[in-house]
């Protein structure tokens, strides 16, 4: 579905992403892992056409740069790690914006199909009861779920997530990841996400790209990438001992 070849992103003299290539296929949940400053978020911003980059990113053979904004949005949906709304829009209005890329013209109202997609997205994320609530009154978890509902309403083929459960409590983390896993079960879909929590990456990811200082260190199936050798080298510590030690407290 999505193919990134030799992606390089520079901010002035500083190279943030250095010659990274990978492929995302249908049904895959590809985890981008690595320490802070590895270039994970910048890489997904490049895929979302948010930063200039060298290299080529293709959607089924077509260069993403040649796509119109709405065309891209119908294929790729992005959920940022931090979302906030400045005005008192209702949850339904924010979720409804996800249908922007399907608008027929500026005078057209919301079509039946759009309404169905919004209803479905609200149902999937358990926000039906809050559909008329002001976004300003929602908790952090509810806000993140509202934006996830917006991406679901957008109905993209690939979901790009930048630390989707960051700053959320355990309950919301579990909810968000379960929702995304259910979304991925439908045919023709794939997920690409940045996750700091390696346990979550192993639990939900089918594949992984491990990055360090802008470069790709390893990629492939999650089990093959998340090995002690790879992780210890990238993080500069005994990762398994640290995470195992934390886990042992609960056993």
């Amino acid at each position, binding site marked *: 579905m999505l193919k990134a070849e030799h992606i390089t992103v520079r901010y002035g003299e500083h190279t943030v992403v250095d010659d990274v290539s990978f492929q995302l296929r249908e049904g895959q949940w590809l985890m981008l892992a690595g320490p802070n400053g590895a270039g994970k978020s910048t890489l997904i911003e490049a895929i979302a056409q948010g930063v200039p980059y060298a290299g080529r990113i293709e959607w089924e053979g077509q260069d993403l740069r040649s796509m119109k*904004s709405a065309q891209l949005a119908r294929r790729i949906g992005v959920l940022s790690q931090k979302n906030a709304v*400045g*005005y008192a829009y209702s949850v339904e209005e924010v979720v409804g914006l996800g249908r922007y*890329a399907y608008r027929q013209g500026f005078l057209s109202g919301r079509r039946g199909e759009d309404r169905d997609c919004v209803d479905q997205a609200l149902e999937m994320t358990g926000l039906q009861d809050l559909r008329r609530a002001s976004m300003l009154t929602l908790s952090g978890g509810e806000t993140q779920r509202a934006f996830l509902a917006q991406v679901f309403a957008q109905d993209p083929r690939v979901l790009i997530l930048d630390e989707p459960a960051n700053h959320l409590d355990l309950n919301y983390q579990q909810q968000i990841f379960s929702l995304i896993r259910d979304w991925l079960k439908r045919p023709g879909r794939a997920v690409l996400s940045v996750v700091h929590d390696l346990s979550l990456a192993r639990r939900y990811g089918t594949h992984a790209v491990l990055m360090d200082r802008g470069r790709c260190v390893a990629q492939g199936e999650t089990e093959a990438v998340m090995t002690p050798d790879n992780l210890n080298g990238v993080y500069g510590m005994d990762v398994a001992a640290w995470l195992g030690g934390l886990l042992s407290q609960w056993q």
Partner: protein
Amino acid sequence: MNDARSLRRERFAPVTYALLTAGLLLTMVLCVCVGSVPITLSDTVTAVWNALWGLPIPQNIAKNIILNVRLPRVLCVALAGASLSLCGAAMQGLLRNPLADGSTIGVSSGAALGAVIAMAAGITLPGSGYGGVMLTAMAFAFGSLVLILSLAYALDRSLATNSIILIGVIFTMFISSIISLVVTFASEHTRSLNFWTLGSFSGVNYDQAKLLGLALLVCGSVILRYSHELNAFAVGEDNARHIGVNVKRVKLIILITISALIGVCVSISGTVSFVGLVMPHIARMLVGPNHRRLLPAALFAGAIFLLLADLAARTLFSPIELSIGVVTSLVGAVAFVIIFYRTRKAG
């Protein structure tokens, strides 16, 4: 689930717009009737109706005051109020900044400088003596907006509210001093400093009303056409890009349109503060933040507010006429503090 959290104003309310239209028409009639020479409602209606249909106007009606003094002024004030308020609402949505407005971020001052320079230098367009002033005001308004946003971006890449307002305030002070300089040395060519800094609709004519009407029709249509996109920007610029808005193109079109409309208004009435800042907030309280409802509501609210402000400026200390900016600033500042306090408290 939670009634306290539910929004009262979810749906488009045609009744609200019917009331606003009626309110605007009533206010316009009131503004024609009230003044240093009181005119009855029936005289006003008769004079306007007969003039519209080319019928003779009875001798006992103060035709000159109604048709040549008050009506063009009322039309210009209503159109300028609607334009400034619409621009404020669009700017607040586009920049996701409740403090954004032509006067707070320096666009109006830039337009005023353009108009003053054009007048002082005698810049005209063939066939339209006033066109040169208006075009220069529009160009300066856009240049100011680009300059302020570029400076704010250089200072803070997130284009934070505080950065834009801070630079806007400094820019306004800087431009005001340049306007003052130009007016001092070219007073015989340009209008008074008071006009440019506080605004006035004294002596406006039908030609200016037509210009304002045309500018509002063209620019207003463009702004209204982008109401979906403004909603997306108001939620967040990154979010707008992610849902498929062509962010750069739409932003540029809206900024050019806003600058053009503000430029036309300032070249005719000078800088009138607070209309574009406060009226969108009041409209938002009435119909919610969705720009499909907010923009038309802001348009009506701005027109009504400026008509009443002009009426107060003309009549409060008659025969002395205040600058309209004195009234809008006095009322607007107080209203803004109340709205901001209530919003913060509710938020």
